[in-house]
């Protein structure tokens, strides 16, 4: 990039243009803070987005505890627990990727990004398997829903929330994979250095947030009243 120097407002002096310091920011620190804050504001809107469904879950579970517990027992704890571990692992690799970027370690950054994407893909694969199980058991809400047991209507309600919430979560994972793939490309092109690694940092915030959503989804969906007997 050609270095253009402007005389800007009094007190700024000359700046070269770099990714770490665009001319409309007073300092690189301010730019980084603005980016971080912007990402957090976005994550707060995501809290609002998911929050609506969590609220619906709380209301209907309060109304129909028996049906929700029975329905929850039809989810596979082994797969759900495994997926939770996979996603937490992906948060570790993502944190390591951000750390590598902070240290200007391009190769490590790429490796950790790839690892994160692999773990994220494993998660989605397992979810596909779980959803297929639900399909085969006729637990997908809709015309083919079938449940032998009491309160079938309320059980279907649970599964509506299950598919709505895990579906929305999986959609966010897919977007995350796209973000990480993009980062991987630019990391390979040498765009991220110890001086400028904000996009990696922000993608990390997004990825960790999606992990946090699952940290709540797992116990709320899979672990309702598991102590009161089997199927």
């Amino acid at each position, binding site marked *: 990039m050609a270095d253009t120097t402007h005389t800007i407002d009094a007190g700024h002096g000359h700046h070269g243009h770099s990714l770490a310091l665009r001319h409309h920011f007073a300092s690189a620190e301010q730019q980084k803070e603005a980016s971080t804050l912007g990402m957090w504001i976005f994550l*707060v809107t995501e809290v609002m987005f998911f929050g609506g469904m969590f609220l619906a879950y709380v209301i209907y579970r309060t109304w129909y505890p028996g049906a929700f517990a029975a329905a929850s027992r039809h989810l596979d704890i082994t797969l759900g627990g495994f997926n939770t571990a996979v996603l937490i692992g992906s948060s570790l690799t993502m944190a390591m990727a951000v750390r590598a970027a902070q240290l200007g370690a391009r190769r490590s950054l790429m490796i950790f990004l790839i690892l994160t994407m692999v773990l994220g893909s494993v998660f989605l694969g397992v979810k596909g398997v779980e959803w297929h199980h639900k399909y085969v058991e006729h637990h997908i809400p809709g015309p083919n829903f079938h449940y032998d047991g009491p309160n079938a209507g309320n059980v279907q309600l649970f599964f509506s929330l299950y598919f709505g919430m895990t579906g929305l979560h999986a959609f966010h994972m897919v977007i995350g994979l796209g973000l990480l793939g993009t980062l991987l490309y630019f990391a390979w092109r040498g765009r991220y250095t110890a001086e400028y690694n904000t996009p990696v940092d922000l993608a990390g915030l997004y990825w960790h947030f999606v992990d946090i959503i699952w940290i709540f989804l797992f116990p709320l969906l899979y672990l309702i009243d598991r102590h009161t007997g089997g199927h």
Partner: protein
Amino acid sequence: MSDHVESKGLYFAIFLALMVGTAITTAIAFVDLGVLNTPVALAIAVSKAMLVVLFFMHVRHSSTLTKVVVFGGTFWLALLIGVTMIDYISRGWLPQKEQGTQFSSQPPRL
């Protein structure tokens, strides 16, 4: 740059804590704690989330403004769920006038 580079060891420690939390919440789901099952599960989930927010998301090194935004989002969610449930849970608590009740104290039947 005021970049705080955390140590690998710290990240691994947080990862282990998260895995332990997952194991505990899964195991304890099979133990009858009565009304405490759900609060315990939520407490574990909140603790795990806090570890992710403070350490993986670097909030413990973030500016006060960032911390305020994080708290604000969480507080908003607490209000959404809390105040809505105050409404639902308190239905039927007050005696109704004879001439038909406006709000049913029974949950809707599906």
